[in-house]
């Protein structure tokens, strides 16, 4: 089930993101913000009591105006603040149903988009660590940890086995452009492969880790399939650098940007959609 959701979701997102691959990363984010705003408006339209929501919102705005009007009356302001809190609570109550409806698809969207916006591909000459983890302390001792890689990647070190015996690491370096690169080793049951993208900065999906366990956690890393049973490896990870989104020279968190843009689009589109939120 999780595998299917991940596969379908990633395929869909990839098709859409492919259209923005050669333009600014903002283009894709703007598109998905618009999509989120439309989805939110539809959810509000059909899953909320629009009349009640409008009334609750009106009351909250009225309380705000009260504070502004009676700003010289300190005891009055405290009373109004209390009433504002109550009005806001009621407003959120009315919004609860559409927000619940939105929660799952928005979370799935965030997990999908994180493949593009959370981490960036390895650059040529950049160094990264590949690690495997197991939950059995002796499991790694029994494995022949010979890491192999695609041509664009150099494996710079022999495996570093941690003292607790649960983890092994290698240092790799991007040698040449290799967007579909990989590293692999024999895990005792067959070849276990992990994607490694060596590519110039830009909008490209990367997968930080490949997991064996945890249904919900696996939703957060949708790009690669689950590590098959009965592998002793539970995590196959590459510590990619963080991707960065800029306004001018200022770095902006992509989730914050997505949220702000979605709200903006929602405000712009609420009239044409005749939706109150």
């Amino acid at each position, binding site marked *: 089930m999780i595998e299917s959701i991940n596969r379908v979701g990633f395929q869909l997102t990839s098709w859409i993101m492919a259209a923005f691959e050669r333009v600014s990363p903002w283009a894709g984010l703007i598109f998905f913000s618009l999509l989120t705003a439309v989805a939110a408006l539809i959810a509000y339209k059909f899953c909320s009591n629009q009349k009640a929501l409008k009334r609750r919102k009106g009351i909250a705005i009225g309380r705000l105006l009260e504070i502004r009007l009676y700003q010289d009356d300190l005891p009055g302001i405290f009373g109004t603040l209390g009433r504002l809190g109550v009005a806001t609570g009621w407003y959120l109550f009315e919004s609860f149903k559409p927000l619940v409806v939105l929660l799952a698809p928005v979370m799935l969207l965030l997990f999908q988009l994180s493949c593009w916006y959370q981490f960036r591909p390895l650059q040529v000459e950049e160094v990264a*660590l590949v690690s495997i983890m197991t939950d059995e302390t002796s499991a790694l001792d029994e494995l022949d940890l010979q890491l192999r890689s695609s041509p664009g990647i150099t494996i710079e*070190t022999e495996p*570093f086995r941690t*003292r607790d015996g649960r983890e092994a690491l*290698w240092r790799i370096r991007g040698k040449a452009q290799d967007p579909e690169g990989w590293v692999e080793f024999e895990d005792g049951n067959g070849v276990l492969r992990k994607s490694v993208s060596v590519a110039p900065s830009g909008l490209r999906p990367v997968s930080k880790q490949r997991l064996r366990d945890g249904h919900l956690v696996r939703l957060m890393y949708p790009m690669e399939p689950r590590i098959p049973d009965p592998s002793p490896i539970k995590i196959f990870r590459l510590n990619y650098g963080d991707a*960065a989104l800029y306004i001018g*020279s*200022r770095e902006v968190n992509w989730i914050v940007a997505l949220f702000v843009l979605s709200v903006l689009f929602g405000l712009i589109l609420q009239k044409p959609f005749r939706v109150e939120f």
Partner: protein
Amino acid sequence: MSATSESGRVPPGRVTRRQFVQTAVGAAGAVGALGFPNIARGGSADIKGVIVLGVDGMDPALLTECIRKGLTPNCKRLAAQGVTRLGTSDPPQSPVAWSNFISGGNPGLHGIFDFISMNPETMMPQLATASSTPPGFSLPIGPYNLPLTGGKSVLQRQGPTLWDLIDRAGIPSTVFRAPVNFPPTSSSANTVSGITTPDVHGSYGVFSLYTESPDEKRTEVSGGRIDRVPVLKGIATCKLRGPENSLRKDRAGADLPFTIEMNRERTMARIRILDCELLLRSGEWSDWVELEFPLISPLASIAGICRFYLKQMEPYLELYVTPVNIHPGNPAMPIGTPDSYSRELARDVGLFYTQGMPEDTSALSAGVFSDDEFRAQATMVLEEQMRFTRHELDRFTEGFLFSYFSTLDLNSHAFWRSLDDQHPLYTPKLAREHGDFLPSLYARIDDAVGWALERADDQTLVFVVSDHGFVPFRRQFNLNGWLMDKGFAEPINQHDRGAASYFQNTDWSRTQAYGVGINTLNLNLKGREGNGIVAAGEDFSMLRQSLIDQLLDYVDEETGENVFKSVHRPEDIYSGPCVEGAPDLILGYNRNYRASWDTILGAYPREIVLDNLDPWSGDHCMDSSFLQGVLLCNRPLRRSAPRMQDLAPTILTALGVPIHEVMDGQSVFTV
């Protein structure tokens, strides 16, 4: 127009930035309207760009040798008539000389006379190029002291700033690693500060060494800290020293814990700090690591960057960490203008050393780096500076571009002993192994000269500017010890006089003179120094003359050579509004001699002249006549004896920007 004279210069006076900018911009406008006669002033009306490669410490004799050997073909192209020697500053220290370059005047104009000066109130040595004031008001909450007003760093360099003048005239300006510009002057030019920029601790750079060696007893060395770390079950738990937490009442350091885990075979180590993980083998360097030192977690922190070098794992673990540099992408202190420029460089080209003197000579002097290790680190620094220079050259089309290289200076300090067979540390083995290093660096710098020439068209001037040359530093002179022997200074405790530094063993009520910094000597003047005893007027003059006579007569008994070539009164060699703040005497050491390491910061060793046994074996803080720099240009120079302060007027004239009245330099294209 009334503010400009016929020469296009603006009136003299106190150089306030606002007045200056207003006048200069007005003058620029007037010049444009009247068709300023560029050529008549020695410039060329067709110049649209000027590229300056500022190569600190390029020595004319060594460059000539490199040209002769064919190592520097691009410099050879620029020195068809021979290498032009460029007059340096008095004293020939980099902050002083580059301030001459920037301001177009002598130290009497810009007020920088040495790396170090004395705070006359506290009688403690201080950095001469910048001062800082703590926040005024703060709100105590629990363990914290939250500032309500900000503290401030102030650049002590006065006078005009070359790139500001160019930028205010509407000509684009980019200055990578601007010397003596921390904190940066307010400007819309693209600048990143260079030499004199501190690390996050506010010092010129403090490295860290983590070792499990039981033989290592030191905890602090000059420019570094050493931590003994126990290794338990293959894991060492360490603390990377962070900056002082100014938000805490106890001002404890905002340290970062990290671990070094070694594999069973001790062939590799995993270093974990914050969410960063590194895997290093012995002898390997990490890339830059980004750090956040928490002040009030998670609300406030200071960003920094450092690199790790795993020196060895057998028989003992030894890990070196560079000084924590100010993060160029998120600077805790201003290191450039506009704020976005250093961020853009970090984003587009990568992280880089922001500390002013990145080659870690302190680690070399402390024996933490071997010669090979220092070479490796210095080479990394150079390649980084080359990468950024290339980046800026590639996008240069017009205007002013300056790029600074520290490499020849700091490596000449460190490796002059490999070329000087009279140096106490010279050995044939050293010469064999490292004698090629300095020439190879000249050759690499020559590559940057080649890039600049490639980039330059016939409307672009290219200058290679070196602020000073180099001479051997074989013998060191304990000025303060000598002053004490001669009765000019008195200790609080005669028996323990050599032990304390920072003038802690000085009885100021009986001390007439003291040396601070490398080339300066001050009298303990009433009304200026906190506990001054020398009266102004005749007492001052007589004492000063006596010191001049005795210093000039002083002979090193072991070599029979005079220790000093010159001793100057500031009024004899400086002019301008800052002369009053100048030291009372400027010392020109003889070739091979320099102020001792101990005397610079106020210690009183008993031995007056001794061998210099520090790898820091070449120097330039001697008499300026030995230490001319280099000036190369892609156009013929007409001035026979150009000086550092001539460059600013030359560049301004070439670009059609009026020269500021207070500049005393002249264009090198005029006779």
